[in-house]
């Protein structure tokens, strides 16, 4: 019975893969055929043209700023949403409503939000910030609410049993349990948002992505490779710093 089910699973998985491979025109032959062109592409990217370092740096800085502002606004906006999306805080009707809404809106990625906001408020970093806020708020609210649901009621009860006021119970029983987690989630999303903000420029929403796209379109590969190197440096620096801080929080 169990082995029969296992083999059915394997067969279904294999069939799904073969069907998708066929439909997506997966072809080893075409890949091998393309190899010389890929090599040529890489060769033309070298050596990088460092004369564009200034604009690449400005783009990277703007990407960083979009991620900082977007993540910070989302971290605060997600607070009330997190509480009303927590089963142990909100009444059932509210909880189910907010959870479903969050799940639905989370299906839309940052880049798609960016397309929408560029159309709404025009080109530049501002629609980029709005896009980061929109997606990050939804995902942080979900993470916050799960942390709120997992809170240990014991310390809360103990603080309250000492004759503390409601605010004191919140400050000493609840906040110490939640704050490190909230900060950790927010930093983690900040790391992801640097990557997300790096491609916002493709749709006109500011940041380093604009330069990547422009130089690639102009076939200026040495300039494009400089921009990519700057992006890699930015992502690595942010990941390193942020994960260091997160480690110390737990």
């Amino acid at each position, binding site marked *: 019975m169990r082995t029969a089910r296992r083999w059915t699973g394997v067969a279904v998985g294999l069939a799904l893969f073969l069907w998708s491979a066929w439909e997506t025109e997966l072809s080893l032959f075409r890949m091998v055929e393309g190899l010389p062109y890929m090599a040529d592409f890489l060769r033309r990217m070298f050596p990088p043209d460092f004369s564009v370092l200034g604009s690449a740096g400005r783009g990277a800085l703007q990407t960083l700023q979009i991620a900082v502002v977007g993540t910070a606004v989302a971290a605060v906006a997600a607070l009330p949403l997190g509480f009303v999306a927590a089963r142990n805080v909100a009444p059932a009707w509210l909880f189910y409503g907010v959870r479903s809404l969050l799940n639905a809106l989370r299906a839309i990625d940052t880049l798609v939000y960016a397309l929408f906001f560029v159309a709404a408020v025009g080109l530049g970093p501002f629609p980029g910030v709005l896009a980061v806020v929109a997606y990050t708020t939804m995902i942080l609210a979900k993470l916050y609410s799960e942390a709120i649901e997992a809170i*240990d009621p*014991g*310390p809360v*009860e*103990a*603080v*309250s*049993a*000492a*004759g*503390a*006021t409601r*605010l*004191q119970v919140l*400050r*000493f*029983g609840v906040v*110490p*349990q939640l704050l*490190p987690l909230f900060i950790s989630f927010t930093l983690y999303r900040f790391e992801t948002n640097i990557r997300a903000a790096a491609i916002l420029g493709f749709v006109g929403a500011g940041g380093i992505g604009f330069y990547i796209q422009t130089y690639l379109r102009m076939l200026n590969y040495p300039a494009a490779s400089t921009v990519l190197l700057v992006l890699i440096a930015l992502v690595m620096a942010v990941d390193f710093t942020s994960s260091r801080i997160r480690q110390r929080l737990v």
Partner: protein
Amino acid sequence: MIEVRGLTKVYPPNTVALRDVSLKIPDGQFATIIGPSGAGKSSLLRCLNGLVAPTAGEILIDGESLTAARGEARRRLVARIGFVFQQFNLIKRLSVLDNVLVGRLSHVPELRSLVGSFPRRDRVLADAVLARVGLAELAHRRADTLSGGQQQRVAIARALVQEPRTILADEPMASLDPALSRTIMDLLRRINEEDGITVITTLHVMDLALEYGQRVIGLRNGRVVYDGGAAGVTDEIVDAIFGGGAG
């Protein structure tokens, strides 16, 4: 004095934890509440400081009704009672000292406490009480790095700095190594004898109840089946509390 009048607790839909319990516990007594699990021991203890709201009946603390009190008046009554939990219930990531200071929250200015600042007097008291439970050198360690027995002593220190009239302890050694039970029970006895603080503790083992309790209150199925001195506990009474057969 703590007085319990006709206390009944029903957990919805129809689990009866306490049935018409009446007791008077005079100041300075060391009382143990004994009974099998599910007898209502924890419910009774938790009703005494308002952690659980009774379905019927009344709790009087030094003549004032806890059941009727609201807001500020209620917090004042609750603050007079220290509570020691089976699972310690410390705030894991705060320091030992900060955990003890939680016991001062009802005594200090509220706004100031919210920024984590405590008057010098309160910090001195917390230090002194930590020294008394033998943990002075661990004051700045994170609470969750301590052993179970040490954590329970921090919890007792937290209750002590409330400067309470009564300490309620809910199976204070049930999550600890048997060897540590005595350390915790001895500490509670010393607090009772030296400070004159009333101690009421629930236990599920008879020998500790007989050894430490001046008074033993036997519960079974939410009813008091024995209430008297440890000396008066006969085999028949032990059987009435723990024995087989319908209760």
